[in-house]
């Protein structure tokens, strides 16, 4: 440090940078990421990220598991929106086996995926609130998230790591309770969301705090392979649901919200708007489902779709089929496919290579978090330390997806 007498005698003071270790367990970071920051006072001069603190070797496990047993693994990638991962994986396999999926199943899938997108964005945006010191929003919106969880629970029995659906469709038809709860969510959620927005979006303190915090330009974002809300906040209208529609997204009418500067405020607002679009998509999907025959909940892929549980317990053939499918003794075509879905954080891709065996020969997950987190040092450079924390939470870095 500069001596007092140097300052008194007006000598040029030598600039000293300090090193700050942020993480892997730090109260302000959500999840475990280590960043070693080079600080000039409060200003971040440089940063180096270390990841891999919960590396669980998903891709290695996937090479040792039959196709149906990989679904629970995908749950644990981005655990804020597990159903999107599950259904994305099912669609990848269906692409490989060239399965025809009925329209009703596709619409049901869209309802689930949009619900989980809302659940994902609710966590991210309310946590931005927490990091700016507004805990209230978090406490408000979590009750609506619980309502979404109740729907998942009604469909598949689990809340967070859902393992929802099967290759080919759903394991059972949706009960009337699901539809009732869905109507209930669609009634209360917009009100709650509006309330949450009233709390933050036009709040002077919040805007001053988040605007201009951790910006990234569209060119930079593209060169770093950003996808999802973070890319759209920078002003690029890329959305997998529109560019490469899956599960009949092309029949739906929705907007892609984009930002301008790619700062925390834009990321927050893009997520907010996406939730409104999701609500509208769900409403459209419910209308479309009503026009379809009500008893269809899976496609006709008997070699891959698990037989009815009732039959498994009571019929010999069904039990054998069930066993064969679960153990992966079915004929999977040889080939390689890449299928992408718009996950909570961006383009979630599945690159699947099959050699005809019971397990995938190679399965690679394109994890949006892992790819865009590498731009983090670039985004926080020159900003304040407290902005660095906020940037991280607004990027919505999910440790499970980051480290695979």
């Amino acid at each position: 440090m500069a001596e007092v007498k140097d300052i008194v005698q007006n000598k040029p003071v030598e600039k000293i940078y300090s090193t700050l270790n942020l993480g892997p367990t730090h109260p302000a970071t959500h999840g475990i990421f280590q960043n070693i920051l080079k600080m000039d006072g409060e200003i971040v001069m440089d940063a180096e990220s270390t990841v891999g603190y919960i590396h669980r070797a998903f891709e290695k496990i996937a090479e040792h598991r039959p196709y149906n047993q990989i679904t629970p693994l995908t749950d644990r990638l981005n655990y804020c929106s597990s159903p999107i991962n599950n259904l994305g994986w099912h669609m990848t396999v269906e692409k490989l086996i060239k399965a025809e999926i009925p329209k009703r199943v596709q619409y049901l899938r869209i309802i689930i995926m949009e619900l989980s997108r809302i659940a994902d964005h609710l966590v991210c945006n309310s946590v931005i609130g927490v990091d700016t010191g507004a805990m209230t929003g978090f406490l408000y919106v979590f009750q609506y998230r619980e309502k979404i969880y109740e729907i998942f629970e009604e469909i598949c029995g689990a809340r967070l790591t859902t393992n929802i659906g099967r290759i080919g469709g759903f394991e059972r038809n949706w009960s009337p309770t699901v539809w009732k709860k869905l109507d209930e969510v669609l009634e209360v959620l917009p009100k709650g969301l509006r309330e949450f927005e009233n709390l933050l979006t036009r709040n002077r303190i919040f805007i001053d705090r988040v605007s201009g915090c951790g910006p990234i330009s569209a060119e930079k974002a593209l060169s770093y392979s950003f996808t999802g809300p973070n890319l759209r906040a920078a002003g690029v209208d890329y959305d997998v649901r529109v560019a490469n529609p899956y599960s009949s997204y092309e029949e739906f009418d929705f907007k892609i919200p984009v930002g301008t500067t790619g700062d925390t405020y834009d990321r927050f607002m893009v997520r907010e708007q996406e939730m409104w679009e999701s609500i509208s998509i769900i409403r459209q999907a419910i209308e479309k489902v009503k026009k379809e025959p009500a008893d269809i909940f899976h496609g006709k892929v008997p070699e891959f779709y698990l037989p009815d549980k009732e039959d498994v317990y009571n019929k010999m053939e069904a039990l054998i089929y069930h066993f064969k499918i679960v153990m992966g003794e079915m004929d999977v075509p040889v080939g390689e496919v890449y299928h992408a879905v718009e996950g909570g954080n961006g383009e979630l891709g599945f690159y699947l290579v099959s050699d005809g065996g019971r397990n995938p020969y190679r399965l690679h997950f394109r994890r949006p978090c892992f790819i865009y987190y590498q731009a983090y040092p670039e985004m926080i450079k020159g900003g304040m330390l407290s902005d660095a924390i906020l940037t991280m939470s607004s990027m919505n870095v999910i440790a499970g997806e980051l480290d695979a």
Partner: protein
Amino acid sequence: MGIDKSPTATLGNAPAGYEGPGFFATSLDKAVGMARKNSIWPLPFATSCCGIEFMATMASHYDLGRFGSERLSFSPRQADLLMVMGTIAKKMGPILRQVYEQMAEPKWVLSMGACASSGGIFDTYSVLQGIDRIMPVDVYIPGCPPRPEQVIDGLMQIQKLVENESLRRRDSEEYKKLQEKYGLN
């Protein structure tokens, strides 16, 4: 005991003791146990999916504050309870251990979820197969991830342990042996 039906929340019932006009006498163990039990400061060591369920437990719907544990202590120095939630990779092991060593006695450890308890479905080269390989654990919560109700149940189990713990336990030979087994101090 009995179910308390009054609308106001009570922190707990007074331990057994002698009561007279203007005084109440009980053993120090019990008084301290009651006080500790209702003010456990947890350190949420959340790494993955279980952390999200813990957030749900913390939030308005399930409200961990009812058990005196809403004050999260992110600093290990002031924490009473280490809640390990989620997969602990081998890379993370030494860090978790350091956090545990930094905590002051008396301390308790709660292992939430299959991953922290046994490695769960991740039987791989990179995952620590249960945190009890590096530190003693008081309560395990099963589930992948456990439901918030289960987390609350786990916390109540910890409360029971805290309430009934003898003040001398941490000086006992048995406890020292346990620490030696894990190479602590």
